[in-house]
């Protein structure tokens, strides 16, 4: 009885004020964000919100005044537009993509955007960083937890179900929105070889594909009727339904959150739709681009120097 009363008393009198106090004391308290403001504010005209069918799915960072931005490729589905700090919302289209980094170059009809200048600053562990939201609003503070390195992907997935009735590897189903779907694999196709190495059975085909990680590219030799078809594809992370976006303790995560050739890990708590924007250091330099929220303790960002090289590559290739 005593104990019950005591707990109740604590709940009644302590909870609301304790909450408010904790928010004031938190790492992203209003006072902290106000301090970061001067460092992200100069990016006001360089960060836009990407809308997919009018819902925000990512941020995009301006890389060319004539309407080019970079953003997170895997979030781009449906009708795309970019909403800018000055109130404009412009239709956007995908120009080029890098599957490994999950980076996309998108274009809008504009001539007066303010491109960001990427910085090749040293990203040592402990470096304090701020993530910019749309219109240069500081989202949150963090520190570099792991210096840039390869973030290995999970097991690569083709996105097909193979027939159990056949000795060979015969496609019985192609899941929507997967690597196989994108490469035009069809029901009834027989997988004859993986990267030129012949596979005779269902087991051999699965073994050959399972060894590969998400993001890796693959050549499939398919038998379709009397024809032989070559399919080039980049292994995915499985169908959308398969990817759990949320687990209780990990929180909201990006669907594509691994398999990056180079990324640094920081501890800034972002929402998946806050990826695609720049990370600045305490001198206001754009040292990276947030590419994935990967659980409770990790956000991955591509180092600034890599983003610059990737953007140049994507523009040339286009």
């Amino acid at each position, binding site marked *: 009885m005593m104990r019950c009363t005591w707990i109740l008393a604590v709940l009644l009198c302590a909870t609301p004020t304790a909450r408010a106090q904790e928010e004031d004391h938190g790492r992203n308290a209003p006072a902290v964000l106000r301090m970061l403001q001067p460092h992200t504010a100069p990016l006001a005209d360089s960060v836009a919100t990407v809308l997919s069918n009018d819902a925000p799915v990512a941020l995009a960072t301006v890389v060319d005044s004539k309407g080019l931005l970079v953003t997170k490729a895997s979030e781009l589905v449906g009708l795309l537009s970019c909403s800018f700090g000055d109130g404009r919302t412009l239709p956007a289209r995908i120009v080029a993509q890098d599957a490994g980094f999950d980076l996309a170059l998108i274009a809008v009809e504009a001539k007066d955007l303010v491109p960001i200048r990427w910085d090749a600053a040293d990203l040592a562990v402990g*470096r304090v960083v701020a993530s910019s939201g749309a219109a240069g609003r500081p989202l949150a503070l963090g520190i570099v937890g792991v210096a840039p390195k390869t973030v290995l992907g999970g097991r690569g997935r083709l996105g097909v179900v193979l027939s159990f009735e056949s000795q060979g590897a015969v496609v019985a189903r192609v899941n929507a929105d997967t690597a196989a779907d994108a490469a035009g694999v069809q029901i009834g196709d027989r997988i004859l070889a993986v990267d030129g190495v012949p596979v005779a059975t269902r087991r051999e085909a699965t073994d050959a594909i399972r060894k590969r990680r998400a993001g890796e590219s693959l050549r499939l030799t398919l038998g379709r009727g009397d024809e032989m078809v070559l399919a080039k594809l980049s292994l995915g992370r499985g169908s959308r339904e398969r990817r759990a976006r949320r687990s209780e303790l990990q929180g909201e995560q990006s669907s594509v959150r691994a398999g990056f050739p180079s990324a640094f890990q920081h501890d800034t708590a972002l929402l998946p739709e806050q990826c695609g924007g720049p990370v600045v250091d305490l001198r206001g330099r754009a040292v990276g681009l947030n590419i994935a929220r990967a659980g409770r303790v990790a956000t991955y960002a591509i180092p600034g120097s890599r983003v610059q090289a990737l953007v140049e590559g994507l523009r040339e290739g286009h």
Partner: protein
Amino acid sequence: MISLLACLVLALAHPAAHDTPPELEDLARFQARVESVLEAASPATVGVRVGGTSGSGVLVSSDGLVLTAAHVIGGAGRTARVFLADGRELEAETLGGNGMRDSGMLRIKNVSGLPFVSVPAPHELEPGSWCVATGHPGGYVEDRPPVARLGRILDTSGLFLKTDCPVIGGDSGGPLFDLEGNLIGIHSRIEEDVASNYHVPMTTYRLGWKRMLAGEEWTRSDAKLGVRRTVDSATGVWIGEILDGRSAAVAGLRPSDILRRINGEPVRSLRQLRWLLSDLRPGDEIEVTFLRARETRRCALTLSGPLAPTGDDK
């Protein structure tokens, strides 16, 4: 800590954009402190594997004594593997701990010259102070050094220290530091909210040190001060009644004394007093700091055991 907060507040008071704004200077100092904490913290942070459990720990002596969480070691006398920040894998043996407070120890076998951090003397922790965590989220991974994270202290009044420094499974047992580089906690548990992370405060390691070293495992204690009718206050625990012949009476404490510290560990509530006593045993001699008529005094006190029939004293 307090000075850093002062910096933040000062910086906010000068939002004007000069060539070198004052807040930038302060943030640069902040940056330097975080990096200097990690310089010492990272090499002393280890990965721990006991049976099927993966956790973290922190070296507190050059000859391989590691502080961790009780739920990581799962009992004394077990074989453990320890993964140093430099990639070495060493064999260790688990020692004791307080299961209720989740404090535990282990010792790496036959080793010397390891990097370590010291366990600081008792000091006050203020909500709002910044802190830095290291550990191995998801368990030790080869080629990945201990992962650094930042946060602030949210609550110091509970059984655990609460921060918004994000940790997750595998970090358990890893260290939390203030920006002076003091070891202030060991990661223990989390709630769904990313801002609800709980760390074992250092009090339990300081008070239970010898018992842990000796491989003792415990969750509670019969140790009593021999006081009753207490009231929590901002300055400490106000004592209403002193029980005849019990330890507080023998030590010379009087009604209306305000209990402030036990062995230097601050006491602000009866709950905290109980948690501190959980690491001590009847017969232990402790130093009590108390306030009498606004004057701070100290005395030695030998803890009593339970009161025989209806003992509801503390």
